C-alpha cells in the first residue's frame, strides 16, 4: 500500500519536474530539483541578534539567486535552505549539522561563533559535505584540517572560510593605526589598551599586542588594562588609564562594557587624541548608538564592514533595512550574504552537485562579487582561508558608522585627532 502511494507521488513530482525543465538534457531530470544548503547560526541564546542577522542575509541572497534563474550551469537548479540553530552551544551546533545533513543538505554555511564552527568541522569532514564558513575568526578551525590533510590523516579538506582570521585582525589593526596617524600628520606615542578579559577579549588583545611587537611601529603600548566581563563599574580602570597620560585609548569591548567605558572616559575628562579600537563589538551597533549617542562620536574601530561605495551594496542594504525592521546591513548580514553568493558561483563552476567536484571548484575560486570591504577577489589559500578578507576602519560620524580606511573604500575622510570638547 505504502509503496504504491510513494510511487504515485514520485511520479507526480517527476512529472512536475519534467514540466518545469522542459527543453533541458535528459540526465538533469533525474537529479533533485533543488540544491539543499544547511544554514546554521545562533538564532536563539546570547548571540541571537547577530545570528538572526546572518540568517536573514543568507536568505536574501538565496532568494536573489533563485529569482535570477537559479544555478544556470545545473539547468536553473534552485537553492533550498535548511535552517539550523546552534544556540551558541558547540554540542547543539554539531547535532544540527548532523540533522541537516541527514535531511539532505549537500553543503553547509555558518555558524558565526568560532566554538560552534570547531564543533561542526569533524562532522563535515566525516560526512564529506563541503562547508563554507561565513563568519568565525579563530585561526585553528581551518588550519587544523589543512594540517591533517597535509599529513595524510584525511584525504580532502571540506572546510573553507571567507572571513578575516583572528591573527589577521591584529595585524590589520596595527597597520591601519600607523596609516591613519601618518595620513593625519600626527605622531601619538602612548597607547593604552583596555579590554574585556573573557576569551574573545583576551585573544583579541593578545593578537593586537603581538602584532604591535612584530611590526615595531613608532608608537608604544604603555599598558594593557583588563576588566572582568561583564563589569559593574569601570571608574578605577579609567582613572588608572588616565594616570598614564595616554594619547590614544584602544578599547576591546562587549556591548555592555562599552556602555560603561565610554561615558566614564568622558566623565573623568581623559584628554586623548581619540578612541581607536583594534576590533570588537559594542562600538557601532544600532542599539549601542541609541544608548551611547554622542559618547560614540568620532570613535574609530577596525571591523569587517560592507563596502557602501558599491551601488549593489547600497541596494541590498536598503532591502535588508526593510526586511529587518530598520536594522543596518553590517558585518554579520553582509558576510553571510556574500557566502551564499559565493556558493552560487562555486556551483556554477562545479557544474555538478558532487561533493568532490564542489571542493575542486572551491579551491579554484577567483570571485569578485563580494559586498564587503576586501583587498581583492575571494581566493582560498593552502589553509582554506581567504587572505583578501580584511576588516575596514570605521568611524562614527554624525552617529552613523562610516568606512574611513582603507582609502579606496572610504566613504568619508576620518576626523582624527578628534575635536576638543
Amino acid at each position: 500500500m505504502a509503496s504504491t502511494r510513494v510511487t504515485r507521488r514520485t511520479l507526480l513530482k517527476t512529472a512536475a519536474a519534467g514540466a518545469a525543465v522542459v527543453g533541458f538534457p535528459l540526465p538533469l531530470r533525474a537529479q533533485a530539483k533543488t540544491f539543499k544548503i544547511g544554514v546554521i547560526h545562533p538564532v536563539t541564546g546570547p548571540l541571537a541578534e547577530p545570528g538572526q542577522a546572518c540568517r536573514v542575509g543568507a536568505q536574501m541572497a538565496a532568494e536573489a539567486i533563485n529569482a535570477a534563474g537559479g544555478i544556470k550551469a545545473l539547468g536553473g537548479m534552485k537553492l533550498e535552505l535548511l535552517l539550523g540553530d546552534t544556540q551558541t552551544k558547540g554540542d547543539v551546533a554539531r547535532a544540527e549539522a548532523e540533522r541537516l545533513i541527514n535531511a539532505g543538505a549537500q553543503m553547509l554555511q555558518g555558524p558565526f561563533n568560532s566554538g560552534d564552527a570547531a564543533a561542526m568541522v569533524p562532522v563535515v569532514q566525516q560526512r564529506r559535505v563541503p562547508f563554507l564558513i561565513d563568519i568565525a575568526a579563530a585561526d585553528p578551525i581551518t588550519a587544523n584540517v589543512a594540517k591533517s590533510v597535509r599529513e595524510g590523516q584525511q584525504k580532502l579538506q571540506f572546510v573553507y572560510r571567507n572571513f578575516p582570521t583572528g591573527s589577521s585582525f591584529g595585524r590589520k589593526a596595527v597597520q591601519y593605526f600607523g596609516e591613519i596617524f601618518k595620513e593625519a600628520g600626527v605622531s601619538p606615542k602612548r597607547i593604552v589598551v583596555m579590554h574585556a578579559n573573557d576569551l574573545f577579549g583576551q585573544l583579541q588583545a593578545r593578537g593586537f599586542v603581538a602584532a604591535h611587537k612584530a611590526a615595531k611601529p613608532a608608537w608604544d603600548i604603555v599598558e594593557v588594562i583588563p576588566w572582568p566581563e561583564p563589569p559593574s563599574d569601570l571608574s578605577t580602570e579609567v582613572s588608572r588609564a588616565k594616570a598614564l597620560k595616554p594619547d590614544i585609548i584602544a578599547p576591546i569591548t562587549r556591548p555592555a562594557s562599552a556602555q560603561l567605558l565610554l561615558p566614564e572616559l568622558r566623565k573623568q575628562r581623559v584628554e586623548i587624541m581619540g578612541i581607536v579600537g583594534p576590533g570588537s563589538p559594542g562600538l557601532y551597533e544600532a542599539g549601542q548608538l541609541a544608548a551611547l549617542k554622542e559618547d560614540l562620536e568620532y570613535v574609530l574601530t577596525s571591523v569587517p564592514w560592507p563596502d557602501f561605495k558599491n551601488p549593489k551594496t547600497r541596494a541590498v542594504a536598503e532591502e535588508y533595512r526593510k526586511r529587518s525592521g530598520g536594522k543596518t546591513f553590517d558585518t554579520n548580514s553582509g558576510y553571510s550574504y556574500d557566502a551564499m553568493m559565493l556558493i552560487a558561483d562555486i556551483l556554477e563552476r562545479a557544474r555538478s552537485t558532487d561533493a568532490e567536484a564542489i571542493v575542486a571548484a572551491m579551491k579554484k575560486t577567483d570571485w569578485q562579487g563580494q559586498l564587503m570591504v576586501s583587498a581583492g577577489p575571494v581566493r582560498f589559500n593552502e589553509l582554506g582561508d581567504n587572505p583578501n578578507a580584511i576588516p575596514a576602519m570605521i568611524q562614527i560620524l554624525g552617529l552613523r558608522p562610516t568606512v574611513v580606511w582603507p582609502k579606496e573604500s572610504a566613504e568619508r575622510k576620518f576626523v582624527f585627532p578628534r575635536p576638543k570638547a
Partner: protein
Amino acid sequence: MAVGLTLIFGVMRVINFAHGDMMVWGMYIALLLSRRAGLDPYVGFVISAVALFALGLAVQRGLVQRIVDAPHEMQILLMLGVALVLENAALMAFGPEPERVRSPLAASTIWLGPVFVDVGRLVTFGVAVLLTLLLWLFLFRTDLGRAIRAAADNPYGALVIGTDVRRVYATAFGIGAACVGAAGALVSPLLPFQPATGLSLSITSFNIVIIGGMGSLLGAFIGGLLVSVAESLGAVFLAPSLKELVSFSLLILILLFRPAGLFGKRAP
C-alpha cells in the same frame, strides 16, 4: 539591594535567589518610565518600588508562603525557578541587547580640584542611605514594623500574641522586593543591564549580606560599603581584573573567622 535581601531572609529564613532578577525588572521599569513618560529614574524609582512591592506580595502569597517551613534546598529550587521565569520573561519582553537609562544627572560630575565626584553615584548613595534609614524607622518605630521583628524573632510567639504572621510575612517580602526595585531604578543610569544580569547581581548581594551578617540591616549596609571599597582598592593596588578576587577573598575570610558575618547573630 542587600538590605532587601537581608530583610526577607531575616524575617522568613527564605533565601531569595530571584533577588537579582527582581532588581533587573526594577531597572526595566525605570527604562520604560524614562522612554515612554520621560520620567527621570531618580524620580521614577518610587514607581518602580511600588511595582516591585506588588510583585513581591504576589510571589509571597502565591508561592513562598507554601514553602516557608520546607527545607532550605526546596526553597532554593523554588526561588531559582522564579528567577528563571523572571529572566526569560524579561528576555521576551525587552530582548537581549544591553540597555542603559539616560539621565542628565548621571552624566554630570563635580570637580573638587583634581578629585572628581560622580553626581549620579552621589545621589544614588544619598537616596540609599535615606531609604535604609526610613526602613529602620519603620521597623523600630511602627506597630507593623514591630510585628515584623516579632515574627522574625519567634514566629510561634508572635502568633500566640495575636499577630497575623502570614500578613506580616507578605508585607516583609513586599518591602524587601520594593527595596530592590528602588535600588534597580537608582543604579539603572550607572550600570548597563540585560536580562542575564540578574545572576551576577544576586551573587554580589549574597556576598554583601554574608559579609555583613544575614538578617542584619546595619550589616547589609556596612557590608555593601566594605565590598565596594575593597574592590576599588583591589583594582588600584592589584590588577583591575582581580578586583572580584578581593571581595570574594574577604567573603572566605569572614566565613572562616566569623561565620555569622560582621553584625549577624550567632546561630543558636
